[in-house]
């Protein structure tokens, strides 16, 4: 049973790596941001599977943290992007 989990985790990591390669190469900042989302979900799935395969219960906490960081970084990206949009004529107005 454990080797099935490991094989599934490796397959998911390979799929995530393919997706990351494609997303990270694009010029659009928003698409590069989706890499974090992809890594978050794929990483969490692989971590959970490897944790179940190895029997270490702590990996589910690591997976929880990874998911939290992915969510926060996405929110931070969109929040930061709102304050300094490229085409906003009066950037100083937001600074007050």
């Amino acid at each position, binding site marked *: *049973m454990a080797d099935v989990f490991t094989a599934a985790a490796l397959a998911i990591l390979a799929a995530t790596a393919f*997706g990351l390669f494609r997303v990270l190469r694009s010029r659009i900042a928003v698409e590069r941001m989706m890499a974090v989302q992809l890594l978050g979900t794929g990483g969490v799935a692989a971590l959970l599977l490897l944790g179940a395969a190895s029997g270490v219960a702590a990996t589910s906490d690591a997976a929880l943290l990874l998911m939290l960081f992915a969510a926060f970084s996405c929110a931070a990206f969109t929040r930061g992007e709102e304050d300094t949009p490229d085409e906003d004529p009066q950037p100083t107005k937001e600074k007050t």
Partner: protein
Amino acid sequence: MTILAHVFTLLAVTAGALLFLAGTIGLLRFPDTLSRLHALSKADNLGLALIVLGLLPQAASLTDGLKLILIWLLAQLSAATASQLIAGSLNRRKSGP
């Protein structure tokens, strides 16, 4: 009874892995960013849900199973909000003069 649990786990985990593959293929194939974002968050989350479902009977204790479900819930909520935020910022960028 354990045979049934093992078979269920096998099926759910392989289905989850296949869904991740489908999500990645969707990511590679779709033409524009929004549909790629759609493929990415939907397929991956369903894959994660199936994997968590498959891992539940293998969980050592009830609390571990509950933690798995909480991880999946956090994944669903954060993926939904993150996708909305990203799509929103994309629309704002497109609608700019």
